[in-house]
């Protein structure tokens, strides 16, 4: 089946005064319609830059997509003109941002902002967009939706704003929604509600979802497939089931060992990954993870491993992948 989105060898670099930062390097992945893909990794590993690259929202300068293809609905987004890409943003592909508190214009009502994609892409009049917006707010379970359209962002709570943001993303029924850490700024109970809502709404509409997060729990529950990123590269790709049952990359194993689990002896200590995330200005030679890796072998310092098939639908970039069941399970 032809995928909705095919990313091939995407590289996004930033030139700074100190030097070139390869924020995203040689990233490839596919996404089918209606599928949910999790993108996991620590802060600064290139998750958000990948997402912004998909939307072509990388500020240039300093950033630049230097290489690759992003084929979305059969068209290479990197070859489109500014006007054409604008018609895809918010229309075929929408984004949900990390900070619901600041992602709304403080001087515009929620209604006008939720209506904005409709006004831009569907040439709708204010009145017509208004009724659709009331309906959208109802779908994201905002009580008294029609009345709430008149509210300003500061009159909404964080959870409500994120709901409104989801409504705005859904306005033009896009084929793909990119959610960049959509629940990081919210408290845990709201997180679960919102993710559940997002999952349900995208399933109903057949919309694909890229869920960017550093929370493995969220990925386990809501994603179909997972890409684990480290220092700008994908180090492991698998279905959720395979990744949790049989993680291969030492980094993935390390991530899993560093979160507490309910079904485990509470006295067992968490094992954090030693060391610091790599400095992308001076990335380590060979495999970027080798300075922190438990399974390091001499070749890791010299050559970078490529993604290789470990089992069906499971790829890992490691010279010495973890083979036994990880100690955490």
């Amino acid at each position: 089946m032809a995928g909705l989105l095919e990313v091939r060898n995407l590289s996004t670099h930033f030139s700074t005064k100190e030097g070139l930062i390869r924020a995203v390097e040689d990233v490839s992945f596919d996404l089918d319609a209606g599928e949910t893909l999790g993108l996991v990794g620590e802060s600064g590993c290139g998750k958000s830059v990948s997402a912004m690259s998909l939307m072509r929202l990388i500020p240039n300068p300093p950033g630049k997509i230097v290489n690759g293809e992003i084929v979305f609905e059969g068209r290479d987004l990197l070859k489109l003109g500014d006007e054409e890409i604008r018609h895809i943003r918010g229309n075929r592909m929408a984004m949900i941002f990390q900070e619901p508190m600041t992602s709304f214009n403080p001087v515009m009502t929620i209604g006008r902002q939720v209506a904005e994609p409709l006004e831009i892409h569907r040439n709708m009049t204010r009145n017509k967009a208004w009724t659709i917006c009331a309906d959208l707010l109802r779908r994201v379970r905002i009580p008294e939706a029609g009345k709430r359209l008149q509210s300003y962002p500061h009159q909404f709570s964080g959870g409500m704003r994120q709901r409104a943001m989801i409504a705005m993303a859904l306005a033009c029924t896009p084929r793909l929604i990119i959610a960049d850490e959509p629940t990081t700024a919210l408290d845990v109970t709201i997180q679960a509600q919102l993710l559940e809502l997002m999952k349900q709404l995208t399933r109903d509409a057949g919309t694909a979802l890229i869920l960017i997060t550093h929370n493995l729990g969220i990925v386990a529950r809501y994603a179909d497939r997972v890409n684990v990123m480290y220092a700008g590269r994908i180090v492991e790709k698998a279905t959720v089931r395979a990744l949790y049952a049989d993680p291969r990359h030492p980094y993935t194993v390390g991530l899993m060992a560093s979160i507490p689990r309910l079904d485990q002896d509470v006295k067992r200590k968490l094992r954090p990954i030693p060391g610091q995330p790599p400095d992308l200005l001076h990335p380590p030679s060979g495999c970027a993870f080798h300075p922190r890796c438990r399974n390091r072998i001499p070749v890791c310092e010299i050559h970078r491993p490529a993604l290789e098939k470990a089992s069906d639908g499971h790829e890992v970039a490691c010279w010495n992948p973890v083979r036994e069941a990880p100690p955490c399970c």
Partner: protein
Amino acid sequence: MTMDEETVSSDIRQAGDSEKEPAPPEFETGRREPRRSLRTGIRPILYAILHHKTACMGILIILLLTVMALFAPWLAPHDPNEQDLYHVLESPSRRHLLGTDDVGRDLLSRVLFGARVSLFVGLSSTVFSALIGIFIGLVAGYKGGAIDMLTMRITDTFMCIPGLIFLLVLAAALGPGVHNIIIAIAALGWTGFARITRGQVLSLRQLPFVEAAHAAGASGWRIMFRHLLPNAMAPIIVAASITVGGAIMLESAAAFLGLGVQPPTPSWGEALRVGYSYLEIVPLFSIVPGLMITLAVLAFNFLGDGLRDALDPRLRGEAQKIV
């Protein structure tokens, strides 16, 4: 001032009452509400201004001047251009409350009519300056890079030109008259607006909501005018108010030099110039127009001051608590 307070508090009471009403069907509220939401946005600002003593004074004086300008034909006891050569340079009398000028025209009438020129020039030149400056500032701040560089250097260049000398040159080139004065003031006044707008845009465009608007597919113009400009309005409004005062001052200076409104149209600056020669005979002839200019400039500066305090939510804490 007490009256103003009363209107505000009754306003609040009304708004509070209407919220308790059972909500009408949703679509209807959708249509009816825009006015109310506008008021929720403006009400605390209005409240803050009405509690700012100098701002109230400014507003009062501006209202007074506006009434003078609008209703001059009805308020003036005489035709401002009617000469009476038997009664020149008279001191105040019952017939001429402020006396007469050098050709026997009623000074009070001329001062009343003079408000028209000053306000017209002050407001219209500010509007033109603001339009030009806001546009240039928006584009420079939003586009950045070479465009920003170029426009800001042009702005700097214009800022270097001394206002009065430019006024003289332009009047010499285009001839004296109100319209040329407005052009001259606007041609120099836009720089302040451009700088303020650009500064605002530079800090605003970093904010996530601008990125969110990009992600929604908004075009550059849409982002500039619908997202950035409304957020940048507060300091622009403050600057506009103070610019009006400055423009009135410049207009009077031009008229004082004989470059502004041409006689016999009454103008404060022109009256000041003529009256200046008779300072020892009839002091009121120059003192009254001078006082009017001072009052007008002060009033707009007061208003600007009050607006600055009112539009800055950090200085508005007290007022907001009550609302």
